[in-house]
């Protein structure tokens, strides 16, 4: 099935306004693993006939890694340019599959003139299920499978979103098993605060290994995440233990798309 991914520019040219803008993010656009998450979400949006658009080449980094790395200039330059584009298209609602984009767009853009309703993709999908647009009843793909959810810091502690991704996993008829550190006490994957783009400081362990151990302890066959960076870190962690055959690291959107056989 080919994906239907209209851009804002195309929509405008046709005199249409989308209900929601899908902010793909840099990882979702360029990282090979994260692109699969992007496509899974688009499949869901297409399947549910959600009227959405992407910015395409007009999208640019939100500036999150620059801000966390201490470079406020670069952050605000990016923010101002993005806000000009978003306001130019009169965007009202944004969905994104990246908690870092989510946090920045939702919390840090308003003061700079960018006011939008921003939702994480797990929240949007939860809404699609609740309003009956997406049905998972009787789907067997993950029935009874043990799935654990790793809370992305910028979704959980940073924005208090804990239930949306979990409710989706429950909709799969799967067994949600929590790690010993979860929700507000969840351990970081090690990628936040611009750490994704640098080597870690000297220590005795990598953070993603520590976190992967938490996940392995649950005996879950699937580690679900809601963040492209957490996904990378957990995937690397699983590989480190040579468990990539038995344990899959998947985004919640991928689980839903797979279960719905999209």
């Amino acid at each position, binding site marked *: 099935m080919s994906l239907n*991914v209209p*851009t804002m520019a195309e929509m405008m040219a046709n005199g249409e306004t989308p209900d929601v803008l899908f902010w*793909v993010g*840099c990882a979702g*656009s*360029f990282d090979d693993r994260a*692109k699969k998450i*992007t496509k899974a979400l*688009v499949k869901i949006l297409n399947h549910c006939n959600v009227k959405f658009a*992407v910015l*395409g*080449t007009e*999208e*640019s*980094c939100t500036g999150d*890694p*620059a801000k*966390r*790395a*201490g*470079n*406020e*200039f*670069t952050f*605000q*330059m990016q923010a*101002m*340019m993005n806000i*000009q584009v978003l306001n130019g298209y009169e965007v009202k609602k944004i969905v994104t599959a990246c908690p870092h984009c989510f946090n920045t767009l*939702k*919390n*840090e853009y308003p003061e*700079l003139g960018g006011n939008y309703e921003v939702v994480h993709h797990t929240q949007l999908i939860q809404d699609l299920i609740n309003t009956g647009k997406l049905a998972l009843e009787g789907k067997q793909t993950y029935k009874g499978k043990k799935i654990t959810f790793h809370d992305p*810091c*910028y979704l959980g*502690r*940073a*924005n*208090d979103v804990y239930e949306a991704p979990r409710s989706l996993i429950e909709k799969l008829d799967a067994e949600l098993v929590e790690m010993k550190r979860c929700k*507000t*006490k969840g*351990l*970081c994957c090690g*990628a*936040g*605060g*611009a*750490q994704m783009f*640098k*080597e*870690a*400081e*000297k*220590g*005795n*362990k990598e*953070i993603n*290994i*520590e*976190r992967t151990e938490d996940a392995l302890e649950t005996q879950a066959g699937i580690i679900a995440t809601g963040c492209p960076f957490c996904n990378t870190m957990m995937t690397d962690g699983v590989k480190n233990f040579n468990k990539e055959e038995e344990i899959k690291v998947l985004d919640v959107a991928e689980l839903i798309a797979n279960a719905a056989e999209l």
Partner: protein
Amino acid sequence: MIQIIVFALISIVGFGVFGYNIWKVRNNILLGRDIDRKGNSSERWKTMFLVAFGQQKMFSRPIPALLHLALYVAFVITQIELIEIIIDGLSGQHRFFYFALGGFYTFMISFIEVLSLLALIATIIFLARRNLLKLPRFTMKELVGWPTKDANLILIMEIVLVTCIFTMNTTDEVLFRIGGSHVEHANGSFGFIISNFIADLLMPMFADGYPTSTLELMERIGWWGHIAMVFAFLNYLPYSKHFHILLAFPNTYFSNLEKKGKFTNMESVTNEVKLMLDPSADPYAAPADPNATPLRFGAKDVQDLTWKNLLDAYTCTECGRCTSSCPANQTGKLLSPRKIMMDTRDRLVEVGENVRQHGKDYDDGKSLFSYVSEEEVWACTSCNACVDECPVNIDPLSIIIDLRRYLVMEESKIPTELTGMLTNIENNGAPWQFSPSDRLNWAKED
């Protein structure tokens, strides 16, 4: 009469020195930059009520929470007895509330005694936990030396204080029974639950005409010891991690009520960015406020932090929950959020002294970076675990980010890989080296 004068003098000195120290601490805190933490007072009172008064966040670790609760409630309730001691001390009476409150007095002092006993047990367990169990978070290197002594000293002072209370009440009870109490026209028993019990055990010793002078002396030692410990404690607080018993309240009131993920947008940067992006802006136009002093980007020293960061530093009681939850610290990195708070306080005390002795612009050649290394600053993942964990809503993360901002924007000191990431964002609008024109390629790929 002499007793009253001595008491009044001790009180004046005790409260006076405390007042002076508080004034110094207040001035130190106000060295920080301004930040608006005024609005939404109902939410603020609620936060203070739950987090400080109700100790909500302590209960994520139930056993220490209960022990701490015993100490805390004992501390709060004992203040009633303290009021009596002050009234008695200044008026020369004995147990002023005994007649004023009647039966409720017996209940109240009994309640204080029970709480004091629980507090004593908690204190002993806490001492054992620090010195025998050696929990990792109490033996980390930032606690070596003074912080460990400080912690033990507080616990020992608490034991002395409780011992004084029981010495006072027990000896007074025995005196009361043998008709020698200072309480006039009274005999029988006070009936305080614990001192009554101890007195029962001691009574045989005093059965046959035991001289009351020793008992009276011990009662006075307990009474004076109690008030002396209170003043000692009060004046020790501003130098100690134990300051949290007072500052937890304002510190939680002034909590950050925004989502934890929201970092401040630096206003000075916003103005410059707006100028850069606005084609019609006149770069030579006079600045809006010609008297405005240009702020340093980020924080090099404590004056560049906000007053709330500095209040945080004084409030920290060095429990180390932040550090034990920190992913960097757990994996052996140098970063410890608790150390960041301790360093900030140590540096602030030093800067405060400098300002008082040499004036506001004195430069001692040091900065917060004399205490915090760059390696610590760069190890943070900004995961907010430390912020979430703190039982009194301290925010070490905002200090770490301000230190990063200084390093990056003032000194251009940044890990090399991050320079690459920043250049990519500036040139291609992504942290990696991809062409912006390829951003939608995923939609056409299989």
